[in-house]
């Protein structure tokens, strides 16, 4: 059996110009490449990252410090974790805007329970249960009822923001148990565990996306759900599962968030809404071009971090870093799109 398939774009919509023929067998990983297809340009962003890093090392003396490099790597680990979680639903063609508030809501629930005397070991499963409930509700509304994913998750985003204010009584709640702080901030090889968790999640998602049938099914469902259905893939189950996994993982990120900051400010969820999504989209320009992928997301985020840190060390004002962030996103995604068109024409 052969199927007409389209190459998924960052938006999840099929790119008609880049149409290729894909056999049902093609949905199963071939094992021929670690990173999938995409030509040499898939390493272009990695190359730019390396060039910027070398330039910074050469021209900015402060960069020649392991502590600064480590601090750069660590500083955006929460964003990286959320960006990786964001790729799950994005890969299936949907949006999950609620991940940042699920993170804050779970963190808020955990700390409030702990402060009220509930053991941490009991509070953690309840926080994960909250994430699962949010993911299941999002999945039910989007997959079963057919509500647009953007609208659904924007709704749960708002409701969870209110939930965080409710459980914390609109207050910053501090006093996180040391065991949770140590489980996040302790260092291994000079790198805090929070960063290791992000790297482990990136590797785990890379394995699922690139090396398992599920990863290919997600991609296929995101690119062309009708064709995927005809190919026998359980489209609804895959999409529902993506929302569920997104909710559960977001709540786990919430626990990491809690340990990292040692307190919860219920008003912070909004500031974590867009940056992870931007990193996930930028990640489609690296490693596996045109597809949401974990290693591309890691490379993209580190490119931004190195560039922004370099600017900060040089004394750039806040607006300069904002401009850098925005331009990097626009240029990288546009360049990737152009490269994709050239490839399709050949």
């Amino acid at each position, binding site marked *: 059996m052969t199927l007409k398939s389209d190459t998924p774009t960052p938006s999840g919509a099929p790119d008609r110009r880049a149409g290729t023929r894909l056999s049902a067998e093609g949905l199963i990983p071939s094992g021929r490449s670690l990173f999938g297809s995409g030509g040499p340009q898939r390493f272009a962003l990695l190359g730019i990252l390396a060039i910027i890093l070398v330039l910074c090392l050469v021209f900015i003396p402060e960069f020649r410090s392991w502590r600064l490099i480590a601090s750069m790597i660590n500083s955006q680990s929460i964003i990286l974790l959320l960006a990786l979680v964001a790729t799950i639903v994005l890969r299936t063609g949907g949006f999950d805007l609620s991940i940042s508030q699920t993170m804050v809501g779970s963190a808020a629930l955990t700390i409030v329970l702990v402060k009220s005397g509930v053991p941490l070991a009991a509070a953690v499963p309840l926080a994960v249960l909250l994430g699962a409930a949010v993911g299941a509700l999002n999945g039910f509304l989007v997959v079963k009822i057919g509500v647009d994913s953007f609208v659904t998750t924007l709704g749960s985003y708002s409701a969870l923001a209110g939930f965080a204010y409710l459980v914390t009584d609109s207050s910053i709640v501090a006093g996180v148990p040391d065991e949770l702080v140590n489980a996040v901030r302790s260092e291994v090889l000079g790198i805090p565990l929070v960063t290791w968790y992000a790297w482990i999640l990136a590797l785990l998602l890379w394995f699922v996306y690139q090396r398992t049938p599920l990863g290919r099914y997600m991609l296929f469902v995101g690119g062309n759900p009708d064709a995927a259905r005809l190919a026998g893939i359980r489209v609804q189950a895959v999409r529902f599962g993506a929302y569920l996994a997104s909710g559960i993982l977001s709540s786990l990120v919430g626990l990491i968030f809690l340990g990292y900051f*040692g307190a919860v400010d219920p008003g912070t969820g909004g500031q974590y809404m867009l940056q992870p999504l931007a990193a996930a989209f930028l990640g489609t320009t690296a490693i596996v071009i045109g597809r949401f992928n974990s290693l591309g997301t890691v490379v993209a985020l580190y490119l931004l971090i190195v560039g922004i840190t370099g600017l900060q060390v040089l004394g750039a004002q806040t607006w300069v870093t904002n401009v850098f962030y925005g331009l990097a996103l626009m240029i990288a995604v546009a360049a990737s799109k152009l490269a994709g068109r050239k490839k399709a024409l050949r």
Partner: protein
Amino acid sequence: MRKTTATLVGLGVLAFALTGCTPAVSSDGGTAASAPVDAANADCVSAVTPDVEAAMEPSALVAPEAPLDLAGLAGKKIWYITNSQNQFSTEMSTGVEEAGKAAGVDVTVFDGQNSTSRYSEGINQAIAQGADGIILMAVQPAVVKEDLAAAEAAGIKVLSTLNGDPDEPVAAGTFGNLTADYTADGELMGKWALYDSGCAADVVVVQSSPVHVWDLAAKGIEAAITDSGSDSSVKVLDIDPAKIATDTTSQLQTALQVDPDVNYVLPVWDSAMPFISPAIAASGGTAKVLAHDGISASLELIASGKDQQGTVAMPPPGWIGWAAFDEVGRAITGAADPGYVIPTRLVTSDNVGDGSVGDVSPNYADYQTAFTSAWSK
């Protein structure tokens, strides 16, 4: 593939085996001892010591002396429009509501949700619903200039709160500004760092300049350090207000790595603490932290000896709510504006006690009675 996975797992196991885990939180949670006073900086220390010691004394109670025309106020409507919903604004709104209840005034609380359009909506709803007074909580009047003009035209008395220093001109459309002296508080923060370090302070200030009061405090700190004539230095991190949660830690972490000699971090608001602590911990945890506001979470941290060493504390936010209500009430009834200034107290481990209002603001334990007694004289 199996080879790759096995190699990765092997490397991971080896790394853990060789290095072990370094705990992030020590059991003592102590901070570095104060630096010895250098002879060359003795003059600097002598100059700042009286101000710091005076600022550690409890703030005197600020309360009305003249009665309030409660009969004239009965049945009036006052709107309280917040910048956003947070611990400070919520506690202050409780104060406004309590005062309203005591004076027989109908109080409506409107959450501005950190959005200019919501502030505008709140003011226009207040106008439409026949409000007699409006209290703007940390909403910069300039961003709702036209709405304030409409309120003024409707005869509504608008009080701005927590915007700028007390001696700044009153914004158009408002009759007053209930605030603290943020510039003086910033200078006090800088002086404390000088005092505590023996005038050998390497300071990083964390602020967000679009928030006017934070900018004033940051400038006060800079002035205190640069005018001290000591070897101390100061650097200001100006964070985008829309990215405080995501950027503060990373920018501070970078600053601490670039200059490992930083021994004081001065965020100009207490709520920044969750984003300050991880950066300090990642740098080795020796820099001391002094912030501003005196929210209960920070007072708890100071009392526990963890993460934060001090704050410039305002009285309980509930008192600010009562004082704001009092000012608006007097404006509505045509009485003279008392022109309250929010007092502040330098709070450190030396005078925080258990972090309660009784210990931090002992003269404010029963401020409500001070208001109601004066009102009914």
